[in-house]
């Protein structure tokens, strides 16, 4: 999960994207990532999000999701970050995250939850090509305009992210190979 740069297209959403939209409970009798990935963001309101997140064949063109506030609110299901990762998303950039979603992303070693200081949903639009650079001061920038926006450093969870998730982190502490 620990990567220095991520380059790809963005999918832009708004506030309060809930776990029922990210992966509806009707798919929760499996933890099979390949199945979950085919239903990622399936219940986003199509009236609000005219461009579907997934292509008709179930593939996904986006490596980065950009959201406003409280991304991942609702259920504790780890299926949510797993579904996004399986679809091909490597990072979600939002102003704030719902706490369980955030913890699942980090502790599961699944996907990078990146907090932006600014509202980036006005800056980027779905389909834009951007680059996230996590070396030194983390930034997200447009590949066309080269305008860069700051991302908050990870703080205390950095060690868990670098270990690849809570399991690897704990095993290191416990001395389990």
């Amino acid at each position, binding site marked *: 999960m620990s990567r220095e740069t991520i380059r790809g297209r963005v999918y832009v959403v708004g*506030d*309060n994207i*809930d776990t*029922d*939209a990210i992966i*509806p*409970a*009707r798919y*929760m*009798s*499996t*933890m099979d990532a390949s199945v979950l990935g085919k239903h990622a963001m399936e*219940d986003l*309101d199509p009236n609000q999000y005219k461009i579907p997140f997934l292509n008709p064949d179930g593939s996904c063109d986006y490596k980065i999701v950009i959201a406003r*506030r*409280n991304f991942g*609110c*609702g*259920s*504790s*299901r*780890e299926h949510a970050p797993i579904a996004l990762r399986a679809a091909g998303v490597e990072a979600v950039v939002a102003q*704030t995250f*719902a*706490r*369980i979603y955030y*913890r*699942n992303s980090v*502790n*599961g*070693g699944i996907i990078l939850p990146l907090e932006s200081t600014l509202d980036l949903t006005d800056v980027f639009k779905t389909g834009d090509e951007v680059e996230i650079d996590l070396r030194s001061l983390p930034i997200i920038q447009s590949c066309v305009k080269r305008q860069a926006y700051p991302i908050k450093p990870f703080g*205390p*969870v950095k060690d*868990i992210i670098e270990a690849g*998730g*809570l*399991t690897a982190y*704990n*095993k290191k502490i*416990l001395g*389990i190979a």
Partner: protein
Amino acid sequence: MRQTITEKILARHCGRDRVSPGETIESKVDVLMMHDITSSDVIKLLKREFGNRIHPDLKVVATPDHYVPGKDIASAILYQELKGFVDEQQALGADITAYMVEGGDYGVCHVMLPSKGHVIPGQVIVGGDSHTCTYGALGAFSTGIGTTEAGNVLATGSLWFRVPESFKIDVNGEMPKNVMAKDLFLRVVGDVGVDGCLYQAMEWTGDTIRNMSIDEKMTLTNMAIEAGAKSGIIEPDGKTIEYRRARQAPMTQENWRSWCTDADNLKSDKDATYVNVKEINASGLEPLVAKPHLPSNVTPARELNNIKINQAYIGSCTGGKWEDFVAAGEILKGRKAAKGVRLLVVPSTSDIQDRLVASGLYFTFKNAGAVFSAPTCGACLGGYMGVLAPGEVCISSTNRNFRGRMGHPNSEVYLASPKTVAASAIAGYIIGAKNE
């Protein structure tokens, strides 16, 4: 600096005198709750990564509830895996108590744990379900966690937390008869928004809260997550101790005495620091409804004009407790659900189901045209036993009304108190319970 109850509990659990909001700590975990649909990978993780060994100091309570009795083959397998794990771990000597469908004593996790005596004031409790924050009603620090976290808690008996700031909601005055704790919570989340308490502990204080029953307190702490909170908490008092004393979970006399003494000291200091304080006059509350598709989309029920309903649902960890049925029963007694309305009654535990029958309340609902199901989370999350078709409208005593939450993405869920759900079932459209 003086401390809140949440800070005191977390400090004790990391062996410190005090902790401060914002710092990251490794906390001992007293109890881990496991249910059917988030445990399969927890079990696999423990076996694969940690030699299948549960930490000896950890208490595990298994309460399968979401898709039981088996909704389909896939969920039957999830239940089978959990049951196999419980049997195996019990044989290995792990401290694991399970309430399985076999034997008929089971139900929705967040009502089962308190009602079976597995929640003690001052404990740290986590579970693979977002509404694990419920147990704060008894003065425990409790919060929902994910699959990877639960697997690690099983192995280590501990978990990292960022110590939350506390948001105090001080409620005083007498609530009108037609108003329930659900209305009070909706009022708060309507004011602060679904991320208004993000990462924070919601601490409820005041005369109104002290006078509430444990069931009603549980509604307040249960829904903390709907305001983005990490936990909800209410300081324990004599009523809390009495509630716990009446529950059967085994505990030695000596331990019991120490917990009771402890509970007396479990209060926020008077000059503790809060990130925010909100004061509410309970006598000014009225029946409220959260409109689709957010729990914060709150409006007085009286302002809704002729919203016809297809389904009225009384159930779940939020609104399927004993007193929720007593309250709804008062409204429904001698009356009938309107033509064309499905009235679904889903007791959250088999004990509550027994009480419904024994008290005669069963017939109040039955004669009103209700259909009963076995205890399950079922339709609350669009699973089964009451899933909505496209275009259908449901008024529900549950906790979430996100798009597609209870069924088809084009169905609609309005959240309300059990009394308002009952009143609406009779009317056939959404109407607040009358103040009578």
